[in-house]
Every structure is written in structure tokens, then in C-alpha cells.
């Protein structure tokens, strides 16, 4: 992600002064857990999630000097991860054709909450078109702001907001919280 901040806050000063090793340790400490959840959800496979993560952290270590601001670290790391995932997934896509049909089983193996409600939520998320699903995953799992998501996906903030609006609207519809628009029915 771009180094969005131009403020010189204490974060930035400290970050510039700490060692590369410490930076890396902080990166793991602060973001490995969130990244793992995101990785597992995208990869649907523990081994692959760990592999892509290890590869992403290796790349992060190698280019850690280019990271100048603690605030930008998470977005930067997720960007590296997303690129690595795209690269590996493209190569292995043929193996994942069958995965969709075994989602319930896969979910249980992964260690997700196996209650029907949790499954329904994950299923609703899966059903979303990729363009709506991606920003929602980044917001809910990654905890990114709309501006950060815009930067990660390389689209405008208003486009992100529109996609998030549609994503949640559809989720609510899939989950039966919100009815689909009714035709020709006037409620009194």
C-alpha cells in the first residue's frame, strides 16, 4: 500500500529508528493473527494458508526497509499477502475446483465454528460476487477503513463504499434479514 500518511507522528519517528529485526517482530506480533484468519478464509486450506503466509512474510522481511511507517504496516503486509496468494492460487487453481462442494466439511476441518448460524454467515459471504466480497472481507476480517481498502484494491473510496453497501445489502437478503424488493405490493 502507498505510504498514505504525511504526518510526522510519534509512530513514524519510532518506526524509523528501530532495527529491522524489531520491525519484523512487531509485524508478526501485531498482524500475524489477523492475516492468518484472512489467509485461511481465502485459501480454504490450512497448509496452503500457512505456506502463502510464510512466503509473504519472507517477502516482507526482504523489503522491510521500504516500510517507513508503523501505520502503513498492516496494509503493506496485506498487499504483499494478496499478491502472493494470487500468484500461488493462479498456479494451483485446478486443485480448487472441487473445494466449493465440500464447504461444510472443509469448514469443520479448518476449525471454524460449526453452528448452523455461523455456517449460514460464511455461506452468505461465499455467495457474494467477488467484487462485493473482497472489500467486505477486508473491512470485517482485516479491520481496514474504506480509504485503506480503496488503496489496497486500487479503486476509489466511493467505489468501495458502493460495493460495501451492496455487499451488506445482499448478505442481509441471503440471511433473510432483509426482504428482496417486492413488486406491486403496497403495504398499509
Amino acid at each position, binding site marked *: 500500500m502507498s505510504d498514505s500518511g504525511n504526518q510526522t507522528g510519534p509512530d513514524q519517528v519510532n518506526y524509523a529508528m528501530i532495527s529491522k*529485526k524489531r520491525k519484523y517482530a512487531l509485524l508478526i506480533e501485531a498482524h500475524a493473527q489477523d492475516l*492468518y484468519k484472512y489467509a485461511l478464509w481465502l485459501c480454504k486450506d490450512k497448509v496452503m494458508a500457512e505456506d502463502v503466509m510464510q512466503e509473504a512474510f519472507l517477502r516482507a522481511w526482504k523489503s522491510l526497509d521500504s516500510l517507513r511507517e508503523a501505520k502503513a504496516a498492516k496494509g503493506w503486509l496485506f498487499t504483499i499477502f494478496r499478491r502472493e496468494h494470487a500468484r500461488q492460487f493462479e498456479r494451483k487453481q485446478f486443485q480448487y475446483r472441487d473445494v466449493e462442494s465440500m464447504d461444510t466439511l472443509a469448514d469443520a476441518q479448518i476449525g471454524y*465454528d460449526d453452528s448452523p448460524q455461523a455456517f449460514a454467515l460464511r455461506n452468505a459471504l461465499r455467495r457474494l460476487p467477488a467484487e462485493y466480497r473482497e472489500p467486505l472481507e477486508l473491512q470485517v*476480517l482485516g479491520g481496514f477503513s474504506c480509504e485503506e481498502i480503496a488503496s489496497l484494491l486500487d479503486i476509489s473510496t466511493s467505489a468501495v463504499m458502493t460495493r460495501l453497501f451492496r455487499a451488506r445489502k445482499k448478505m442481509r437478503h441471503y440471511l433473510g*434479514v432483509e426482504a428482496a424488493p417486492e413488486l406491486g405490493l403496497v403495504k398499509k
Partner: protein
Amino acid sequence: MSEQNQNLDCLEFQRLCLSDPDNQQAAFAEHAHNCTQCMGYLNEVKAMDSSLRDSLDVRTPGDLIARLQLQQEMQQTRGRCGLFKAAALAALLTAGSVLLAGWWQVQHWQTEQQVEQDYQQLLAVVVEHVQGEAFTPVWEFTKANRTANTLLASYDDALQLYPMSNLQFSRICPMGEYRGLHATLQTDHGQITFVYLRGQPLGDLLDTAYQGFITRVKPVRGGNLVLIARDMRALEQGAADLSRAMYWDI
């Protein structure tokens, strides 16, 4: 519904709710405060987000964090080894070889004394790790080979593995004070586990029966190979496979 809020009407508010429920705008907070219906709507959206987050929650494997940390240490060691080699060469050229040879002899003698003790410790720690680590089943042998090669290369630039069609699983694991490549091979007589640890090679090839396993410690360049199997034939086959597959690209 609130008529008094000029900045956001209910429709705009609910739209914003769906795109950014944690919105920090004053007008957003104000509308929520003044309009019970919209506040209810916001809470509903937030509840959905929070349930979704919970449904995707998993525990991060503890060893993953260790491996990420280890990966960096290995990268650093690799860099330092290069530096050390350069420094040693410089020392040799400038300070003369006599001093350096004397230094090496002292180091070597100290290491010899340690070997016996190190051997016991190494085996105990490796077997304990192997017993505790559940194997991930075969995933894809090309991938296992690729991983093994990447990991080996991070120990030693020159160390490589020819593709092995029976390689099942490989990863870098912390084992006590050591860390090493941990992998399994499938043989006609069952599975064999091998661990490669970088360090002082431990003299001779040693076979031991240890906690129901047959173990072999084989000194190889730059470290030791520990082979563990339940069956002697599996051990022999795995050892033969490995000696064919491991090579130094120099």
C-alpha cells in the same frame, strides 16, 4: 424518524450504515442518537458484522508464529555467514594463517568434547518433536520438494535435493534449542521421518533404538541428518533414497 437532522436523512444514514458501520462522522453519530429506528438498524448491521467476524475466527497455530520468526532468523544467519566468510578471508590474507590455525584447533577440541553430550540431547529433542507433531498427509509431492529445497537453501545455499517422488511433507520446525527441516518419506515398509539440523557434524554414523523407534544419526556436510522409523527396512530404504537425493551444488 428524525425530522430535525438536516445533515443526514434516514435513507442516507442507512446507506452509510451498510457501507461503513463504524463511520466516525459527527452527523452519523448525531443521527443515530436522535433516531431510534436508525439506531436499531445500525445495531443490527453491527451485530451481523460481529457474528460474521466470529464465524471466521480461528486460533492461529502457535508454531506458525515460531516459524515466521525462525524464517527471519535464518535469513539473518545467512547474511551473517556471508559476512563471516568475507571477514575470515580478509583475516587470512592480512593477519597470516598461523594465528587462525591455532584458533581453529582450540575451537575444534572444545567441540569434540561436546559431541557425546550433544548427540544424546539432539536425539532426545528430535524424537520428542517427531512424536508430538502430527503429520499432514501427502499434499503434492512437487510442492513438498519445492518447500524442502527452499528450506534447505536457507540453511546452506549449496545444499539441494533432487526431486523425490516419495517425499510427503516438509517444514521447518523448532526442536528444543535446535531448528531444522522436518520431513517424511513413504517407503515400501512404512513411513520414515527425517530431520536435517545444521551444525557440527557428529563424527560417525550411529544407529540406536530409542523409544520404540530405530534412529540413525548421519553426519552430512554442514550438519546432521536424523532418520527415524519403526522398521529397519524403511530406515535403510529412506537412507538410500536420501543419500541419492541430497547433493551440494558447488
